[in-house]
């Protein structure tokens, strides 16, 4: 399995990109080149040069250190948000498929439509504006919008599986819809969910950056890629690198996740897999 995964160029490239940022986030827990809350006015707005590899900001904080800690925030927020979407959305989708055409199917799917009908970032801003700007509220806001995505994709995949003969034999064996959903349906829609998960993960990173950009994500002094971009706005002509590096960090993480998603989809799709061999 791992070998087939690594044969996909997309997947391998994406994986390397993600590993770089994940590693940076992990290292930041024990070591960063400089303290991220160390204001050091004499060294402010340094251009990238040793020992400030990526330069410093207007308070003299080291940009590399901030990007490392920012990776931690971005990954954590996006991961938990995807987790919320999966934990709530997948069971809803499985239930809707198991009770296809019933009252509950309608309630679940129309509820999804309702959430889908609002532009996600605007509602996320609304939620964080009402309940206060914090990482937790950002996670919840992004997570809510992942629920209908996972519910729909699970229901779609599950509906075609419910028509299979092996589901009928499981029903003949007296298994309940819940048990069939867990034993037969879920493992067979897992491929879809993993691929969608990587895509939602990258969207989560973008959403977190967006919320932080407007000041509704994690609060200072905790650095975040989105806020680094926002703070560098006024300095974009004097010190363009200040905006460049957090922007590149977002770009490469999202690119890495999308490449991984593409690679996974190719690998899980039997038609593409056959063409490859």
């Amino acid at each position, binding site marked *: 399995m791992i070998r087939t995964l690594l044969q996909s160029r997309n997947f391998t490239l994406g994986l390397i990109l993600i590993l770089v940022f994940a590693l940076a986030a992990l290292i930041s827990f024990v070591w960063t080149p400089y303290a991220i809350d160390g204001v050091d006015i004499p060294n402010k707005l340094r251009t990238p040069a040793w020992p400030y590899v990526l330069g410093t900001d207007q308070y003299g904080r080291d940009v590399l250190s901030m990007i490392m800690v920012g990776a931690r925030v971005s990954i954590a927020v996006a991961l938990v948000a995807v987790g919320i979407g999966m934990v709530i959305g997948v069971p809803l989708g499985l239930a809707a498929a198991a009770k296809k055409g019933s009252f509950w199917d309608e309630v679940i799917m129309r509820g999804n439509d309702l959430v889908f009908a609002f532009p996600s970032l605007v509602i996320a801003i609304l939620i964080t504006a009402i309940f206060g700007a914090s990482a937790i509220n950002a996670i919840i806001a992004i997570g809510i919008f992942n629920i209908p995505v996972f519910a729909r994709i699970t229901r779609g995949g599950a509906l075609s599986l419910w028509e*299979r*003969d*092996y589901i*009928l*034999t*499981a*029903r*003949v*064996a*007296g*298994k309940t819809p819940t048990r069939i959903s867990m*034993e*037969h349906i879920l*493992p*067979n829609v897992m491929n879809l969910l993993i691929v969608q998960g990587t895509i939602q993960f990258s969207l989560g990173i973008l959403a977190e950056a967006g919320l932080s950009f407007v000041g509704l994500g994690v609060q200072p002094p905790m650095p975040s890629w989105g806020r680094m971009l926002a703070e560098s706005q006024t300095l974009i002509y004097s010190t363009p690198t200040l905006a460049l590096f957090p922007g590149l960090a977002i770009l490469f993480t999202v690119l890495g996740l999308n490449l991984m998603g593409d690679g996974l989809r190719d690998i899980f799709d039997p038609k593409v897999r056959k063409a490859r061999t």
Partner: protein
Amino acid sequence: MTLLTIENLSMKIGAVEILHDVSMSVAPGEILGVIGESGSGKSMTAFSVMQLLPDAATCTGAITLASTDILAASESDLCTIRGNDVGMVFQEPMTALNPVKNIGDQVAETIRIHEPGVSKAEALARAREALDRCELPEDRFPLTRYPHEMSGGQRQRVVIAMAIARHPKLLIADEPTTALDVTTQAEILTLLKRLVTEDNMGLMMITHDLAVVSDMADHIVIMKDGEVVEEGPAATLYKDMQHPYTKALFEASSHQPDRNAPLKSPPLLQVKGLIRDYTLPREKLLKAPGKFRAVNDVSFEIRRGESLGLVGESGCGKSTLTRAILGLEAIQDGEIILDGAPLFTEGGVNPMARRKMQVVFQDPYGSFNPRWKVARLITEPFHLLDNPPTGLAFETAVDQALISVGLTPDDKHKYIHEFSGGQRQRIAIARALITRPDLIILDEAVSALDVSVRAQVLDLLAELSEKHGLTYLFISHDLSVVRTITDRVLVMKAGEIVEKGETESVFDTPQHPYTKALIAAAPRLPDDSPADIKETA
């Protein structure tokens, strides 16, 4: 003069040899039957004629179509030949047509691709003519019809109209009737025969079913593993066959498993006045949705140890009836009693009754969760038991079930994709047997199998019924199979049982006009086929 000559054709895909030294020919107005089981290379031979082969394929030998050397022809020449000189009809009429275009446009399109000078109006006029020739008259099938408004047989007629619209010299039909009901199959075969005579066209008819070609082909070629094992004029081949594979194939087609007549025993399953309605989609917001009665007042019983056949064409309600008996769908009226206990009780399906029956479905590929190993797959029905076996008893039960269907205990560690279609169907039977049920419902259980594999599975079923005293409800559209394995038979049409009785008497002296039509439509091997000779000898 011959139209198509294939001489010593060998074809490789990569390093694998798919066809080896295949030779055959078709003359104008001649019907060539190419017969073989799956993997015999019969379809690949046809694709070679069109040069519609995978990229990695290389052909050696010679294919000559109306004095054109196909193997030497350029791609643009081949494009002219396809559709111009050769028409093709495929197995699956449901996917052969474009669902968003009406039938007139689709037939006209094939004309205009090859004759760019033809105006749209003229192409449509010729499309109309082609459809008329395929017995789709204008008053019932205007050019503006869409494929979804037509039945499978009617769609296959449209596909044939597309193939013959330009009066090709050769028509290749790859399993054209396999997906169709027997009465529809008979109509399509008659149509093909008529078109061959009218246009003096050559027909290459590819099929796995000996009986289908036996009364229409002039010449028959039998293929196995990419080689031609036997060929000859259809009229004499049945008598003069030499190759052991041909003989085995004939025997398998009319195979009769050894069975003992059942004793007069008490009924195991009783179905009384069963009614099953489906709710149709709501047409208007405030109007009550309509109902469709799929099973209407059906009553019958199966005695213990008996094998009962249920015959009918697609849409007759036999699958709905099966699902009702299995307790998978609620019934609107009537009663199902299994071994004295009602199946449906106040609290839902009675688990005691459900434990006494199991099912084997048609599709050997769709019947198993691809992520489970065989041991887990076949023990799924243990869920029905209060105290399912564990540990050593579990292992023994798995091993015994696999051995009883002719597999080995080691197979339990494998995944389902490691098995062939016939082996999978054996595993499905092992799964059905593992809880030692009294009744096994076989829903088209052998329909997807090759004839020789089918014969083996039928033998296995007969043997198991003897050994374990099993009762079978055998549901099929294939009359010849039902005839060989059942004691009594029910004929179902439009949700009702129209005829019932002892299998032999129903087949020999059918009473209901529908039964008569079904039996008349079923293709048959010639009466002096070796299977009969063997029986009399």
